């Protein structure tokens, strides 16, 4: 394939071009809505195909960044427009490119008002998120990240009932929590090294004190993005009343940006601080995971169950990342991928329950066998049955934690076992609960569209579980370059 094309720029900005076309549509509300949905679909599916080209062209034996694109943006201060990928970001880009069309499909019928704006916001979100995964210049990254929060909060505010003020309030808090630390950190980096280019900065050394401050400054926004405690209220207050698009976006993609930020910026740039803080972060995330697990055991309704499961999985991912071992990080990234697919599937199932069937899961489902099978499979995938991607991820995380210390190993292992028990209890409650009157429930089996959404997710989960080598090969060189840097440092 041609390597002269700026593939990454195309993948990043193609959705924006689609946005432009959607803005040109005119006419009646319904016709405009329909046409904007089709335009969005026709933009995001080529984006997905192009991102698959990236995978094909990626050479997994090279470490370092590939498919670099450079252009000088503000030549006066030396800020460049620089995009590039390596093993960590490549899959995140592909999973984002996959999840957005799924999002469009999933909200095909459920969004009735202001469809056009919804599509525009989704496409802008796709641009900014993919851009932030590709960006190799810290300034560019900060621009994309902050630009990503705008459509996100617009989405939350516009299409969820009774959450307008909440969205505004969240956005304001976001500004203070994310904007100020990020901006301050970038200013400081620019001031001390007079460049914001990541490739150059990877070889630069910061002093110990500045590393510690910078790590903390980068930590706050990334933790906000990951919606771990104490920032988890951001998802919680929605309580699943909202549209499915927002939920998928929030939990599956934005959280990944937080972890990616750690992997790309905090750990490579500040190795001393990472070694210093990693044990504390590890303990912290374990505490969060335990907290989420305890709440899971008090099963209130399916929606809160889904949300807390996703928080728990995010906790597991960060446990993997902060064990700063090769297995742990690999497990973390792998879990990130499977978490996005499984999480999306879980949320779609939840929406099918609440919107279509209008019933709590817990009532026996006769007559909808396909949905039953898929739902069961996804629940099992959450647990991490061998054969699904989550299992490989969990295994890697446990291997990573083994290298760390025995106590953490015991804790994490207990966590997994408790999680298994808890999920099986939920499983029982969900599928073998009280039987309702069948006449009252609209027992429609899955339509072709739902199958179309869910099957790629399930297929990918199965693929990652049964034959994970393509994924792992790609990641391994990038991960080993990170951990090698860390190992060379004495721990102080």
């Amino acid at each position: 394939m041609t390597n002269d094309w700026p593939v990454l720029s195309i993948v990043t900005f193609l959705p924006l071009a689609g946005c432009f076309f959607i803005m040109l549509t005119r006419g009646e509300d319904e016709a405009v809505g329909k046409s904007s949905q089709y335009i969005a679909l026709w933009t995001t599916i080529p984006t997905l195909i192009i991102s698959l080209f990236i995978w094909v062209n990626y050479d997994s034996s090279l470490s370092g960044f590939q498919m670099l694109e450079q252009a000088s943006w503000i030549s006066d201060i030396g800020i460049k427009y620089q995009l590039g990928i390596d093993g960590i970001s490549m899959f995140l880009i592909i999973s984002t490119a996959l999840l957005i069309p799924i999002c469009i499909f999933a909200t095909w019928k459920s969004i009735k008002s202001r469809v056009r704006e919804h599509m525009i916001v989704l496409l802008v979100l796709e641009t900014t998120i993919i851009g932030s995964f590709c960006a190799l210049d810290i300034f560019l990254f900060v621009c994309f990240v902050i630009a990503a929060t705008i459509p996100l909060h617009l989405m939350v505010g516009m299409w969820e009932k009774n959450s307008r003020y909440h969205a505004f309030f969240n956005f304001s808090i976001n500004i203070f929590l994310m904007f100020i630390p990020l901006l301050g950190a970038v200013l400081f980096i620019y001031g001390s090294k007079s460049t914001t280019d990541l490739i150059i900065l990877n070889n630069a050394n910061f002093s110990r004190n500045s590393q510690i401050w910078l790590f903390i400054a980068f930590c706050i926004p990334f933790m906000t993005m990951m919606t771990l405690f104490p920032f988890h209220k951001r998802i919680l207050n929605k309580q699943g009343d909202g549209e499915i698009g927002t939920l998928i976006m929030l939990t599956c993609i934005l959280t990944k940006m937080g972890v990616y930020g750690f992997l790309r910026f905090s750990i490579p740039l500040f190795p001393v601080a990472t070694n210093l803080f990693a044990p504390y972060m590890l303990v912290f995330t374990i505490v969060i995971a335990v907290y989420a697990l305890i709440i899971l055991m008090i099963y209130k309704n399916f929606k809160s169950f889904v949300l807390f499961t996703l928080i728990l999985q995010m906790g597991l991912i960060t446990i993997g990342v902060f064990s700063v071992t090769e297995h742990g990080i690999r497990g973390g990234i792998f879990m990130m991928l499977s978490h996005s697919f499984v999480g999306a599937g879980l949320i779609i199932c939840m929406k099918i329950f609440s919107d279509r069937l209008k019933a709590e899961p817990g009532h026996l489902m006769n007559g909808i066998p396909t949905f039953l099978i898929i739902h069961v499979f996804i629940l099992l995938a959450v647990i991490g049955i061998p054969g699904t991607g989550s299992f490989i991820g969990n295994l890697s995380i446990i291997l990573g934690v083994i290298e760390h210390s025995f106590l953490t190993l015991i804790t994490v292992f207990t966590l997994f076992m408790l999680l298994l028990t808890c999920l099986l209890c939920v499983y029982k409650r969900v599928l073998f609960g009280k039987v309702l009157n069948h006449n009252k429930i609209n027992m429609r089996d899955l339509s072709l569209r739902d199958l179309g959404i869910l099957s790629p997710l399930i297929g990918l989960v199965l693929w990652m579980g049964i034959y994970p080598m393509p994924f792992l090969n790609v990641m391994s060189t990038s991960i080993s370059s990170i951990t090698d840097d860390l190992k060379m440092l004495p721990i102080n």
Partner: protein
Amino acid sequence: MSTMVTPAFVFASAEIFLSLASVFILLVAVFRRKGTTTFAAWAVVGVFSIAAILILSNSSDQMKTAFFGLFITSPHTEFVKILILVCSALTVILSNDYLKREEISRFEFPILIVFATLGMMIIVSAGDLITLYLGIELQSLACYVLVSIRTDSFKSIKSGFKYFLIGLLSSIIFLYGCSLIYVFSGATEFIKISQSIDALEEDLPIGFIIGLIFVILGLASKISIIPFQTRVEDCDKQAPVPVTIFLLVGPKIAVLSLLIQFLAGHLWFLFDQWQYIIIALASISMFFPSLMMLFEDNLKRLFVYGATAQTGFALMGLATGSDDGFSSILIYFCIYLTMNFGVFAIILSMRQKKQAVDSVRHLAGLSKSHPFLAFSLLVAIFSMAGIPPFAGFLAKWFILISVMDEKLYLLLFMGITTSCLAAVSYLRILKIMYLDELSEPLDSGISNEAQFVIFTTIALLLLFSFVPDPLISVAKAAVSYL
């Protein structure tokens, strides 16, 4: 002898042309029967364009004085004068339709704007304290009348009178400072002042510093930096919107560039003395408007406070005293002009049932009724709030970098926090626009001029965030002589 005089006229050709042309248009307009205001407006716009061409054709790389040192031209003054001419031209373009709808259409309006512009250009090019005073008074007098152009409303005449009194007060402060400076330095020309004070070396008279403080405060109060913002609250509510935007952008740019010229160009050796004043002024004028904006319901006042906060932010660049700081102020001026004109052009077009409205609540649900208008306001507001990747963020970034290079960390922190505070109030507008329910839609049918202005400003803002280099290099060239 003749070779000495002609170059002087050439340097001031734009101002001379403006004054002559304005008188000429006034005469013609008095004797015309119909359509005087439109004629006057477009004639004035033509005059501004010719003046801009005159400035550009005489551009040079060095600072030159004319009229025996009363008048200075330099690349920096040329840059700022072009900005002022653009500001005035846009005001006149916008005012045409607006004044007709408000039924206060008078042909004196464009002429007064020409006089005010002339005053501002004299301020920018002033090389002497007396010339500076002349420019200030010319601009202020024209603006006093402009503010109370709505002669049939008692409130507007009252607010115009208040504005006059406050302007009088600031002129008094300024003149007192001037007299002190004259006493202690023996001259009123900037060059001679700096020479005589420089000669004194260690024996710097305290009276001179006090005089300098008074001069700076007088100038600052002219552009309503806190604590002289009372005029903001009153007259900006009563004055018609084009006057508000003209007062918002023009004088501030003029006076700030004069401060750069005077303080940084001539009194450079007194940097340690005046740096603290500027830092204090900048901090105060960033902090208080950002707080007051949070509770403001009137759109005009909200954006006027916002503009005051932005002027304070630009003052931070002056406090750095570095070339980077000064060029970043110039870049900030450009973007400040574009943003504010975009926003106020939108406010201008807000009408409900043929009445001009300007409360924030009227913007509710704008995204449903006027999606493109809402989008333009979104771009302008994000720019003002300083959210990447919009143009306003880059402008603030340059100033912040220059402040950081000079290690003024407290000021940096102040700047970032007040920006975030102001951003919250701007976002409140966005929330009302996009998330609130539509109760009563605004009238559609924005005038052509307003559409043109909105479109150009938004396009320029978006363009700057992608291609910032041309403007940056022009700004750097403009201050390189300092």
